[in-house]
């Protein structure tokens, strides 16, 4: 129940709020490329793949970010390799790798039958359990991903918009794709602790979709989408506190509600201006 009107007096809430803003902005930023590359399924898939790594980290008692991080990078590299063989599509490659990885996690859980609480956190997020050191790690990951994408942004834009011409112009589209999928895997890793395996994809997909309705320029999209992601993170955290609902779910539902408002607003505007 609500214990106080101002949640900011609690350290756990301040940590959670900062983490939600950081992860919201990060997912919104990376999500722009995910949505434009029609890779929305991959965020969902990588989150499930990370579950295998998260469970394994708990089983062998190593740090989540290290264990699940190595696992996520391996899963991302595997998806990239299979997809680029072109015998099967990227969606099929994601399906094979990520569900197998998730199944490994389930198998380990059923064998060990412990750390149930941690598994629940991995599945549904544990934003209120974020520590100061978790925050630093998330901030470092956000900075790394942001800088990584800034460095390859032009190549990434060209290979997203027009891959064949980009390749002809000397851009290594294969390498660009590979670097991007690794950065995406790291993003999903940072977000899983907060939003959980089941809800990460929504944070990656919904903000850029909303932003897409609001701008026609790619560069504006790169600014607007992270702002929407951060805003949904912050509003979702407060709503979660006052309504006493799961934080991860509230963040995603806030984004979904905003999407609905924008969609309805634009539909009405179109109807009235037609």
């Amino acid at each position, binding site marked *: 129940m609500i214990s106080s009107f101002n949640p900011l007096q609690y350290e756990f809430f301040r940590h959670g709020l900062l983490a939600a803003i950081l992860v919201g902005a990060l997912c919104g930023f990376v999500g722009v490329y995910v949505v434009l590359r029609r890779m929305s399924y991959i965020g969902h898939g990588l989150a499930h793949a990370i579950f295998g790594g998260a469970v394994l980290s708990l089983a062998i008692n190593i740090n989540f970010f290290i264990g699940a991080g190595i696992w996520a990078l391996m899963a991302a590299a595997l998806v990239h390799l299979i997809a680029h063989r072109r015998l099967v599509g990227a969606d099929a490659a994601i399906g094979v790798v990520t569900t197998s990885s998730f199944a490994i996690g389930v198998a380990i859980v059923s064998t060990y039958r412990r750390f149930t609480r941690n598994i629940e956190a991995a599945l549904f997020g544990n934003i209120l359990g974020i520590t100061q050191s978790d925050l630093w790690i998330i901030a470092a990951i956000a900075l790394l991903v942001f800088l990584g994408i800034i460095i390859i942004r032009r190549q990434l834009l060209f290979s997203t918009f027009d891959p064949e011409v980009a390749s*002809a*112009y000397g851009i290594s589209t294969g390498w660009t794709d590979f670097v991007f999928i690794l950065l995406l895997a790291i993003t999903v890793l940072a977000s899983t602790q907060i939003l959980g395996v089941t809800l990460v994809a929504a944070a990656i997909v919904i903000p850029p979709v909303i932003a897409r309705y609001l701008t026609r320029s*790619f560069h504006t999209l790169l600014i607007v989408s992270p702002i929407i992601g951060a805003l949904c993170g912050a509003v979702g955290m407060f709503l979660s506190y006052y309504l006493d609902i799961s934080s991860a779910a509230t963040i995603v539902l806030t984004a979904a509600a905003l999407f609905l408002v924008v969609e309805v607003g634009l539909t009405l505007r179109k109807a009235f201006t037609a």
Partner: protein
Amino acid sequence: MSPDHHHVTDPHTGRGSLHPHGSMEPHGAQLQEVPLLEIDHVTSGYETGPVIQDVSIKIWRGQFVAVVGPNGGGKTTLLRTILGTIRPTGGKVALRGQPVTAGSLGRIGFVPQLETIDWNFPITVEEVILMGLYRKNHWLKRITKEDRVRLHEMMERLNLAGLGKRHIRELSGGQQQAAFLGRALLGEPDLILLDEPTAGLDIRSRDNVVHFLHEINHQGVAIILTAHDLNWVAAHLPWVICLNRRVIAEGRPPQVFNSEVLRETYRGEMVVFQHEGMIMVGERPHSL
């Protein structure tokens, strides 16, 4: 050129017309020892099999060439092979005397078919044209003030001034073609490839495109384009290659556009006649 080509002219020796604007020579062809582009007995295609076979073509600096042929005849495959995005299974492609691989092309521009563009992609006219500067893997290259000046000069040249912030879908067909041409030109190419640049354009837009292409060709840029409209090619372009999996013929339109060559190229009967000095090609109605 394949041995069974309809021998029309040899561009290098200058027997016959090659100059983009009607003279007997390409820009300095006699002085050019190495062709700008040499396609030497190339066979190329996809996993399902070869699309073009034993194709040999030489393109000289400043040349302006149309490639015509039926759907599936290999026009786009030929362009992709030149670009290095498809690796030939036989023969070789050399640009400025050097073998071509994807990304090794340097000063080359490419304008894809407009129908291959994702028109829902959130991108403005300016953002599209600036991509012409994103060559190789210059990760940290910044867009400089000089680049911006060149961008705006290019947009003025292409009659796109004031449209830079518009979404590409908001332009007319001719303006869209101009925007992608601007992207190709911003890298200062000496060879531009265009895949069906007039597809879907009205007569006025097609006229604008060809006018601009002639203008840049005058500045020494070689151009290879694919086209379906034989009358447009005959009216505006100085050199044509008929392709249907192999090169059927090449030369000036009046020499190449005859019933025999077109029958072999399109596997169908066509009527060719002259009207006020212009070559006209029409389909032969089934009832005749």
